[in-house]
């Protein structure tokens, strides 16, 4: 009896919340200009961390119902808002969510004080593609998932985000047997039917164009062929151009193929009863292209540039006449990035003058297998191709380019494949190497544009690189760093305006916050907030 009494007094287990660590694996985080969001897997919620000017961290929590299956952050929309999109489906043993829906899209705006928006979905789709302008999202089946025993992978759910109540628009692709592989949102194009945005859906064998206007319009599907044989050709990427601003029938798409040397050029032309039709032209560039882009060459003429690494060459194609110019490259480059806008206004990001739209482009060429980058001045590429290239030698091949915000738009960080990384000055055409001593250094661009950040995951040392003086400062935090974010503080009037937040995910979750802009002896003073996810 006594034991029963004691047991009765002590009975009642604590909440399961306390028994589950925040993350069982890699911590899932999303960066915002003024916040960092992370998934508290143990408590099934999103924690939004904001930093005050005194460098203390204030977490707020958004509960998640069901199982999180997809997530993405939108780029800033027209109002500058970035949103976190979360797709959830019923958890194990549950048939539906609390509202009876099979899945849910939750939209969280860390900057706003409004409650998250929850949109019921008809089926749990685990693929999520985001419009680079932040206005659209598309949910699609991914792999074998699709929310049922039988799944139609061509059933999409389009979500228009840039309105007070987001609109959910189911859409079924007209299919010729393919399944969606990649989604690309075009910018606003001047089409014969008016300004329109398109969603380009690449399947294994064709490309579908979905008109995103209010009234639905049947899809336009481009069947892929090289015009020579009957092989099934697969798309490998799509680029587009609006052409001249005043002309509404010169918008074009270029589709490079994964298994053929051809590039399919699609001109969006007038079509009866539709906003646009398609005029297709196939151009052989001499080898399977690794990358393509619409560029402006001499006199602002539009051309399609294709990199053919198998021939160490770049090919310029006139989209109207299909005339080709081949430029020999010093290295078999595989990637092409236009840096023209970054160089406008001396790299300050000043808006280009009206006449700049057709100015010749400058492209940066690089390859993960080559220890060099090249500047390609396309204004000279047609007439004097041998003088159009300027090569910059590196000591190591690079993995990728990291864009930097203004006022250093004209600089890029080149992440080396080994221990080093580089700061490339596009204006001066110089490159500064930085030696990290250990491979695996992770680079982050700062928010203010003054700094770049480098850290080694699972180490406690952090470096701040001054993008103006190119001087690195190192600080040791004493805790293993899992990720770093430079964000704006929540109330920047009194104290620091930019903070560097370093997350320590080992065990419980903690954060070290530094004043990102501190200099001299103030640099390195930090505030540690531990056990961030113990709050309810």
């Amino acid at each position, binding site marked *: 009896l006594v034991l029963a009494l*004691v047991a009765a*007094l002590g009975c009642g287990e604590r909440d399961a919340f306390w028994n589950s660590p925040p993350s069982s694996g890699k911590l899932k985080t999303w960066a915002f200009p003024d916040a960092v969001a992370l998934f508290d897997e143990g408590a099934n919620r999103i924690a939004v961390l904001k930093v005050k000017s005194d460098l203390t961290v204030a977490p707020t929590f958004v509960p998640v119902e069901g199982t999180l299956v997809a997530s993405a952050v939108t780029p800033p929309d027209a109002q500058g808002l970035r949103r976190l999109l979360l797709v959830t489906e019923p958890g194990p043993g549950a048939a539906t969510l609390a509202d009876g829906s099979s899945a849910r899209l939750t939209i969280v705006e860390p900057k706003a004080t409004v409650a998250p928006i929850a949109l019921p979905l008809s089926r749990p789709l685990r693929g999520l593609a985001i419009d680079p302008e932040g206005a659209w999202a598309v949910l699609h089946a991914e792999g074998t998932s699709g929310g049922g025993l039988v799944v139609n992978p061509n059933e999409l759910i389009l979500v228009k985000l840039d309105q007070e109540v987001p609109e959910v628009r189911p859409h079924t692709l007209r299919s010729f047997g393919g399944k969606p592989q990649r989604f690309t949102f075009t910018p606003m194009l001047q089409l014969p039917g008016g300004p329109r945005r398109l969603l380009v859906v690449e399947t294994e064998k064709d490309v579908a164009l979905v008109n995103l206007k209010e009234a639905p319009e049947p899809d336009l599907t481009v069947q892929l062929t090289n015009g020579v044989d009957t092989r099934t050709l697969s798309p490998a990427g799509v680029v587009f151009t609006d052409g001249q601003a005043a002309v509404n029938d010169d918008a074009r798409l270029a589709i490079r193929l994964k298994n053929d040397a051809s590039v399919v050029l699609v001109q969006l032309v007038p079509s009866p009863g539709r906003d646009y039709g398609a005029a297709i032209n196939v151009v052989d560039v001499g080898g399977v292209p690794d990358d393509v882009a619409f560029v402006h060459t001499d006199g602002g003429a539009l051309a399609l540039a294709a990199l053919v690494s198998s021939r160490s060459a770049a090919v310029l194609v006139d989209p109207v006449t299909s005339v080709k110019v081949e430029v020999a490259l010093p290295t078999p480059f595989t990637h092409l990035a236009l840096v023209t806008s970054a160089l406008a206004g001396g790299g300050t990001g000043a808006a280009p003058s009206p006449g700049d739209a057709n100015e010749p482009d400058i492209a940066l060429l690089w390859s993960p297998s080559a220890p060099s980058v090249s500047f390609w001045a396309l204004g000279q590429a047609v007439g004097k191709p041998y003088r159009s290239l300027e090569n910059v030698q590196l000591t190591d091949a690079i993995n990728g380019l990291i864009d930097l915000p203004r006022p250093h738009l004209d600089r890029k960080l080149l992440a080396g494949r080994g221990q080093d990384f580089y700061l490339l000055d596009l204006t001066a055409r110089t490159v500064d190497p930085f030696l990290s001593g250990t491979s695996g250094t992770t680079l982050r661009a700062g928010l203010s544009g003054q700094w770049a950040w480098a850290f080694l995951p699972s180490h406690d040392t952090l470096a701040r690189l001054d993008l103006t003086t190119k001087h690195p400062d190192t600080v040791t935090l004493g805790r293993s760093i899992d990720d770093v974010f430079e964000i704006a503080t929540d109330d920047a009037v009194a104290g620091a305006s930019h903070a560097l937040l370093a997350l320590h995910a080992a065990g419980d*979750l903690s954060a070290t916050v530094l004043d990102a802009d501190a200099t001299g002896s103030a640099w390195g003073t930090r505030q540690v907030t*531990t*056990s961030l996810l113990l709050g309810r």
Partner: protein
Amino acid sequence: MSERFFPPENEGETIMRRTCRRAAPASACLGLALILALPAFVGAEVALAAPGAVEGRAAAAGPGAREISAPDVPPEPSSSAAGVDVPVAAPAEGTPLPPAGADSAAGSVPGWPHRPPPRHPWVGFGPSADQTSYVVERNAVPKRPVPRVPGGLFVTAVGLRSTRVSSTSYQPFSENKAFAEVEIDAGVRVFRDETKAFYLGLAGGWGMTEAPARGATAHLEAARAELLAQGAYAFRSFLMAIGRVSAGALWRDARLVGEAVGNLEQKVWLPQGAAYLGLAARVPASRVDLLFSVEGGYAFVPNRRLRLGPETTSLRESTTPVDLGDLSLGGPGVALRAALLF
């Protein structure tokens, strides 16, 4: 001899009727004696359990009882002093019995000048009506011996106390809602009468709990020092009611230890009090008394914000305290104690 009990007018009745008529008063007396003897049988069990119970009964009988009991009865034989009540056997066959209605309380039992009075109305084996009447009269006095609290001047106890802590801030520290403590206390008797005793003393307790809390380890330790007042009321010599009231200070040490956390801690002193009631069983031992008690009650501890901060700080790094909300270690609880009185 039977002629004495049968008046001449009844000589003509049958044997059966005569037997029934003779048995009627004896049956009535036997029934009454059984009723009166029932509490005394309980007392006999008590006496078996507790030394000194006989003494207690004699003392507790009081003056009124002494008037009825035989004042000229010699001291109890050793068998009674040992606390074992031996039923008095019926007189042997042929022993002269006092006449019916004789005043046995006056000690005029012929032939039994030194025989101790039977303390239990042990009635059985079909004594005669005269014998029944005799036994009932001599044992109607201490029908129920009154138990007595232990006689030790000092008391010391050890025990376990479990408090149900309902505060949500307690959840990081324990996987259930119980906070267990080891207790020790000591006191001195300041009052005692036949059924009650009162003690004053000091009490102390210590408890600890630890649990994983979302990747960190939460550790809570508490110690208390109190002034203690406790009383006992003896229902029986082996069964007592216990009441305890204590007040003092509680030292609470809460820690959060983690790989990224380091060591965050809060140490506070808080006032605290408790009131417990329970039952204690007394077990005789040589020269001391042992009590085992089960108690239930409530501990009062004020809420205090649980803000865990670093043990050390540096100029380059400061740590934001972790705020877990208000925590009180008070609540209802049970306690098991073993006490030694000497």
